């Protein structure tokens, strides 16, 4: 095996221009595909964070009695998925509104009657935070007799979830395209090397070399190129991530979101995948060339 490695390294040195083209191509493909993947990882984190902050506002019908209000609270707290239900009277709601709109407080003062309804602010358990579960929960609450309306920003959550799903599908598609493109580029580059060395390969065969003896150094070259290209692609991505996150992290540090890079195991998996891409490219071109 040491002999094959030596031959592979010698070949890489000898055909360094072709090797450089392959490595750069793999690096670019990995960079683009991994950048997409990193975006999805962080967008997924963002969605999870937002879902944690989801509150359901349950507005009560006008003139709901004290007894009906207490009954509603009890019923809300007994629904599976509800963590807590806090009563917010119309007066408290008006105070909050004034606090949020200090410049328009005079306008609010001039109102003859408080137009806001009494309400419950419902916090949810983690399992109840996805879009379908929220829809189901809101319909159950809506059926309570004292409830006028349930509001939780369903349209926004639904749209955001749809966008993430769309991006995920597009991401898988783009990832698959990049994978195929990289395999074919590696295959073609190796084919160029094979073509430029066809006399040498023919001589090897004439002196009794087996296909295995001829192929192994090429496989090693492909794997080295794949691994090296992937490492370079990931390194460039990390540099880009680092500069972006150090630039934007202070503005994101309000607690909502922390940007993160791939964990070490995923990085390792990407490097292994890139190495396999190199191997696969070699396999395709050798299969055709050594027929």
């Amino acid at each position: 095996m040491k002999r094959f490695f030596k031959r592979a390294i010698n070949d890489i040195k000898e055909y360094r221009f072709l090797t450089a083209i392959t490595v750069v191509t793999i690096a670019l493909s990995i960079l683009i595909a991994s950048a997409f993947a990193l975006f999805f990882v962080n967008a997924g984190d963002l969605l999870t964070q937002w879902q944690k902050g989801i509150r359901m506002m349950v507005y009560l019908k006008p003139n709901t009695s004290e007894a009906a209000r207490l009954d509603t609270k009890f019923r809300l707290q007994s629904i599976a998925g509800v963590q807590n239900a806090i009563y917010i009277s119309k007066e408290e709601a008006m105070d909050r509104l004034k606090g949020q709109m200090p410049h328009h407080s005079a306008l609010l003062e001039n109102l003859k009657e408080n137009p806001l309804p009494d309400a419950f602010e419902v916090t949810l358990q983690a399992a109840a935070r996805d879009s379908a579960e929220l829809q189901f929960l809101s319909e159950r609450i809506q059926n309570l007799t004292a409830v006028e309306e349930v509001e939780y920003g369903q349209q926004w959550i639904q749209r955001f979830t749809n966008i993430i799903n769309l991006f995920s599908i597009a991401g898988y598609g783009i990832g698959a395209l990049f994978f195929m493109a990289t395999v074919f580029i590696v295959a073609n580059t190796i084919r160029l090397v094979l073509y430029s060395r066809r006399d040498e390969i023919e001589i090897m065969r004439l002196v009794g070399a087996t296909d295995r003896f001829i192929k192994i150094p090429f496989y090693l070259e492909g794997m080295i190129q794949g691994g090296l290209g992937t490492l370079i692609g990931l390194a460039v991505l990390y540099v880009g991530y680092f500069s972006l996150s150090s630039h934007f992290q202070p503005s994101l540090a309000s607690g909502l979101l922390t940007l993160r890079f791939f964990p070490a195991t995923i990085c390792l998996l990407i490097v292994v995948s890139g190495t396999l891409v190199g191997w696969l490219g070699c396999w395709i071109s050798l299969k055709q060339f050594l027929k």
Partner: protein
Amino acid sequence: MIQTNSDAIIRLFHIHKRYGKNFALKDVTLDISKNEFLFVTGRSGAGKTTLLKLLYLGEPVSEGQVLIDGMNLSRIGRSRIPLLRRKFGIIFQDYKLIPTKTVYENVALVLEAAGRKPRLIDKKVRSVLRTVGMEDRMGALPQSLSGGEQQRVAVARAAVGDPKIILADEPTGSLDEEAAGVIMDYLDAFHARGTTVIVATHDKNLLQRSTSRVVHLRDGQLWSNESA
């Protein structure tokens, strides 16, 4: 008349080789004994190179049977072709040395391909290069050598694996008389050690210096089969 020989290392039975509708070889039957030195002669295009190629499966036969050291070539699988070729040492008119490898590496390739150990490879390569007088040029690349030197390297490569048979296709075709004589001396020396040697040539001077058997090809047919 075709002679047959039960001590044959190579046996050809009614061989035909066609390229499209054209025959390169027609109904060739020939036995070559172990440790024989055989000349195959004929004009350019007579079928000498084709005949040699059929022996190491450089080309498949169109019809007929070829037996090499007990192996029937029409029955061996692709995976056993390298084993067949290791029975041969082949010398080409155009040398076929790998231009990016040194003299040493070109010769060592045969033993590496056969999976020999590095220490043995080193010992044998140095020994055979010493035999052909190229020990001092081990690190040189082929393009820096003269034609005669390149052919000596090709002879070394053919002999390094201790093959049972050496095939030489016009080994002196592009060499001057002195260099050609040197190459033939090496082939005689390998023959003296027990190797079967087959030389395809149209050079009558080579035939005059030898008493070996000569087979003559004309238009793809075995025309005569005689001792020189």
